[in-house]
């Protein structure tokens, strides 16, 4: 299959709402083609790659392998502009509490669940899990935050979050009962726990920054 120049590939391994991700990318891509694909050759030929994810981590890993996409994802993460979203961020780490399955191990660190004993406010109000809704993201300077105010709110829906072994990976953090990492980056990789495709104007700005990013 021929792949047009400047293609943005959204990796399809059967998990999550890829239509939302691809439509939001198209909205900001300035005419660059966006393809949703399960074909390793298309991923390999793309200019940049988006790795979304939704649902339970063990199911995501199983589906990724069932479709023979693990090698293509790992190769893309080596040198292409690469954006992980939600479970797509978590899968870049070594292991998750969720199902205790090994993940891709691109980054050293674990994926943890919000600790029950910390899920309340000083007022005593209970904090619900999943962490669902719009929360403030504190930024560490990075090209993908261009044009987005520090502390801007993004839409989250998750019960687990990443704990990188190397604090230098952290590009964004958030607080819900506990402080947690909600964005990581290194070289050509940027990955977020929240959903930029569902985060209105600031989310679209982040996707636009990714589409134009030259790491």
């Amino acid at each position, binding site marked *: 299959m021929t792949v047009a120049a400047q293609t943005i590939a959204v990796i399809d391994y059967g998990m999550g709402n890829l239509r*939302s991700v691809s439509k939001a990318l198209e909205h900001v891509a300035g005419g660059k083609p966006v393809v949703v694909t399960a074909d390793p050759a298309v991923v390999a030929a793309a200019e940049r790659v988006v790795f979304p994810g939704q*649902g339970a981590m063990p199911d995501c890993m199983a589906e990724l392998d069932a479709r023979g996409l693990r090698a293509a994802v790992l190769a893309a993460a080596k040198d292409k502009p690469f954006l992980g979203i939600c479970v797509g961020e978590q899968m870049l780490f070594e292991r998750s509490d969720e199902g205790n399955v090994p993940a891709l191990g691109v980054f050293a660190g674990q994926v943890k669940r919000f600790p029950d004993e910390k899920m309340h406010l000083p007022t005593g109000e209970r904090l*619900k899990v999943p962490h669902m809704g719009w929360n403030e993201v504190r930024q560490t300077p990075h090209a993908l935050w261009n044009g987005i105010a520090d502390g801007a709110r993004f*839409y989250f829906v998750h019960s687990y979050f990443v704990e990188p072994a190397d604090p230098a990976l952290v590009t964004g953090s958030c607080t819900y009962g506990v402080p947690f990492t909600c964005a990581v980056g290194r070289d050509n990789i940027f990955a977020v726990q929240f959903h930029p495709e*569902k985060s209105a104007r600031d989310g679209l700005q982040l996707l636009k920054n990714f589409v134009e990013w030259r790491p």
Partner: protein
Amino acid sequence: MLAKRIIPCLDVTAGRVVKGTNFVGLRDAGDPIEIARRYNEQGADEVTFLDITASSDQRDIILHIIEACAEQVFIPLTVGGGVRKVEDVRRLLNAGADKVSMNTAAVLNPDLIFDASSKVGSQCIVVAIDAKQVAPGQWHVFTHGGRNDTGLDAIEWAKKVAALGAGEILLTSMDRDGTKNGFDLALTRGVSDAVSIPVIASGGVGNLQHLADGVSEGRADAVLAASIFHFGEYTVRQAKEYMAARGIEVRL
């Protein structure tokens, strides 16, 4: 800090948004996509579509609406109404819904909650509970638009759906729906305190104080309203400014 969400709800039938009182006297409120876009511009945190189409041959209309909406409105979309099988959930998600709400089918077949959340993830599954007071401090779950008393205790049912894998509860007071007298705050608080998943309060909003009360007294994680927004009484932005002035964390 996590913001409390304001969710405009659009009742859709035959491709149009409608609004009535207690399911009768429907008034046309406009084109669903146009309205969803307007709410997005006003700062809505999510939009919920409720398909109130009675006949199954018109069900596919909602899929086209969701598809078109997901191309233009980049905030979470929840869709409910007529969801009976895991396959229905999948079709709505594939069309662009982020969450799917189930009601009567979940009461008739609670395994549906478990099966659907196992397949697509808890975060996509909302269980809608229509509750009606039957005695002081006691509410039953009703189905079929409030006509059918299931005999289930609303708070016990809320705990059960959470245990089965629901990611969120959309709680509607049948006593208050359409009355503009405010949420049933005792019901809202009872359910919200009983479960560890988010609860959306619904039914009865007539002014902005009702929305604030739902959060501060009802302890809801999100508040849903329809008619106060559809007919231009208030914008979503005004609602948020009101809540912020009352010390409630919102996304402005």
